[in-house]
């Protein structure tokens, strides 16, 4: 079917600016992905899935300029023992990265996997992304599979002693970066993946995660700092039997962020939690789009998203739980809430449930509201100044999402970051 002309033109204009990396063994996957992009076209304003977020600047041939921000605070997770993998404007930096050897994992650059005999990587690159194109199209992810210039492949076979930490530095005001990571967690293995940094002026990131039976993956990410940055990220996760996936994202600043999480529970008794906290000010626009498919028995999924919006900021939540036929005993929970600190800010939510099994417990709730005046007065009557009291209540509001982080040191790092942001922005 022919694409609408506007979409066709926009897609061609974007593709004209891109060169497919000459990446040997991922070449076939990239060609397939390009075919998907050509068939779907890149997102346009009229697409239902982009109703609340304008894709124009994410699709445009050039990345809009984004000033670099030079904060005086240390980078997140700075004092945490971790294996650092650094990218500067989307390009792997061996100098700034640690040695990539760590017991229990094998880490390679995507461009190197062809020289090694690692079947799992060839069987994963672009595969979950392709699966994730139905029932909803995600063309920016296919674009990423086709054109990502760099990325990392992580094979987890044991329980590494420290987290693997992606650090995304932003160095040029016009950088336009695409990264594609793949992670395979073997049966019984367990790993923590961290991500932080502004990455680029425009960042398109795709991560495919395949967790075998009994595997565990924790993911904690912070997107922040540079105010004018834009990002479209996709995480595609497939879970085997009794496996666990827990992901938390903190977003502060950023003029436009769209985070998609596409999770497929394919083995019985698997657990997937995705959570996010964001604080936005002014022309901040943040979109969490989540799609969780239950395709096995007795699985649990949780979505916990909290947004604090002020001075005209916009928050979007599109979250869906799809329970397939036969996925009995599904336990699905979804909550999305926003705290609007003024009348100019807005929260747009579209929670959805689609259920084809009869023995399931699914709930969803979405609210948005102002600060609780009674609680605020109570705090102030004890001598806590308005600003500090408001910040306490704001943090309290975000707590349910932050509490999804299991590791105390990581959750403390996130809370510190939030406290810092709140004290600077109030």
């Amino acid at each position: 079917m022919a694409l609408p002309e506007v979409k066709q033109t926009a897609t061609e204009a974007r593709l004209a600016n891109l060169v497919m990396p000459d990446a040997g063994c991922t070449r076939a996957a990239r060609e397939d992905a390009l075919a998907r992009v050509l068939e779907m076209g890149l997102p346009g304003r009229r697409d239902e899935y982009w109703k609340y977020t304008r894709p124009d600047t994410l699709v445009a041939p050039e990345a809009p300029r984004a000033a670099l921000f030079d904060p005086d605070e240390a980078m997140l997770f700075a004092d945490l023992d971790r294996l650092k993998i650094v990218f500067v404007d989307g390009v792997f930096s061996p100098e700034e990265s640690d040695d990539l050897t760590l017991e229990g994992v094998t880490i390679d650059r995507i461009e190197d996997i062809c020289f090694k005999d690692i079947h799992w990587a060839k069987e994963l690159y672009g595969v979950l992304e392709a699966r994730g194109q139905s029932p909803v199209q995600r063309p920016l992810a296919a674009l990423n599979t086709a054109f990502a210039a760099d990325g990392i492949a992580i094979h987890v076979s044991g329980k590494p002693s420290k987290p693997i930490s992606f650090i995304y530095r932003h160095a040029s005001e016009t950088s336009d970066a695409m990264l594609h990571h793949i992670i395979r967690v073997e049966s019984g293995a367990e790993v923590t993946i961290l991500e932080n940094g502004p990455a680029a002026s425009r960042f398109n990131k795709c991560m495919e995660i395949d967790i075998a039976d009994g595997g565990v993956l924790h993911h904690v990410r912070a997107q922040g700092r540079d105010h004018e940055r834009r990002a479209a990220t996709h995480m595609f996760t497939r879970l085997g039997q009794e496996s666990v996936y827990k992901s938390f994202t903190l977003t502060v600043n950023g003029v436009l962020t769209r985070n998609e999480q596409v999770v497929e529970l394919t083995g019985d008794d698997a657990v997937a939690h995705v959570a996010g906290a964001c604080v936005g000010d002014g022309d901040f626009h943040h979109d969490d789009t989540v799609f969780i498919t239950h395709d096995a028995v007795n699985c649990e999924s949780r979505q916990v998203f909290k947004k604090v919006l002020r001075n005209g900021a916009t928050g979007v939540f599109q979250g869906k739980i799809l329970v397939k036929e036969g996925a009995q005993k599904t336990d699905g929970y979804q909550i999305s809430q926003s705290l609007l600190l003024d009348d100019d800010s807005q929260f747009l939510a579209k929670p959805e449930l689609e259920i084809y099994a009869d023995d399931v417990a699914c709930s969803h709730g979405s609210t948005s509201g102002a600060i609780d005046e009674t609680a605020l007065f109570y705090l102030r009557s004890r001598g806590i100044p308005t600003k500090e009291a408001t910040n306490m209540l704001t943090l309290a509001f975000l707590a349910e999402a932050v509490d999804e982080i299991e590791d105390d040191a990581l959750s403390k790092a996130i809370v510190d970051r939030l406290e810092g942001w709140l004290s600077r922005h109030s």
Partner: protein
Amino acid sequence: MLEIKNLHVKLEEEEKQILKGVDLTVEAGKVHAIMGPNGSGKSTLSYVLSGRDGYEVTDGSATLGGEDLLEMEPEERAAAGVFLAFQYPVEIPGVGNMTFLRTAVNAQRKARGEDELSAADFLKEVRAKAKSLKIDADMLKRPVNVGFSGGEKKRNEILQMAMLEPKMCILDETDSGLDVDAMKLVAEGVNALRDEGRGFLVITHYQRLLDHIKPDVVHIMADGKIVKTGGPDLALEVENNGYADILAEVN
């Protein structure tokens, strides 16, 4: 210490006059009790003194140690020494009781130009005071008042008062919802704070509390005014005969 003169208060949103000329002076070192029928304006008086939104002072004044309370923000009043133990303490999910207490204590110290209390000193003090009010470690860790029983909430109010050491303590029906033993604990908490420099305004419906916290002066409030003032015997009279006789007498 606390001087309220001819205080007139209406609701901000409605043309409803609630306080219609309250005159009341609480001297340092004294305990004053206020009794009065439901809806007479006792809680409103306590809210207006602590600075809650929604009320408009149309006439009169309220000062603490000569300072105009009505001009101050709630947090400034707190730092100046006003404390209100709420009739209905507020639940605040997500804010730990300890964090709340420490933030409050240090905010007030900061406002008064004093050094913040160290974490260790604070802990020591809060543990000792909590213990005497039979507030266990678990309650200190939980979010403020969330899941507390009615009596636990009231004891938590007294703990805050003990930690903040205010000059002017206003207790709004702190006895309601307390069992006999808890009432004694609360009264002991209050009595421990009684000293030369501190005033108390105790709002209650029952003589029971006043058996434990002996008032110096008792006021009867009705329809937005103090209609009668007397000694401790006045509370006994209310307990025995209700308000009918007193109200008939003043009308």
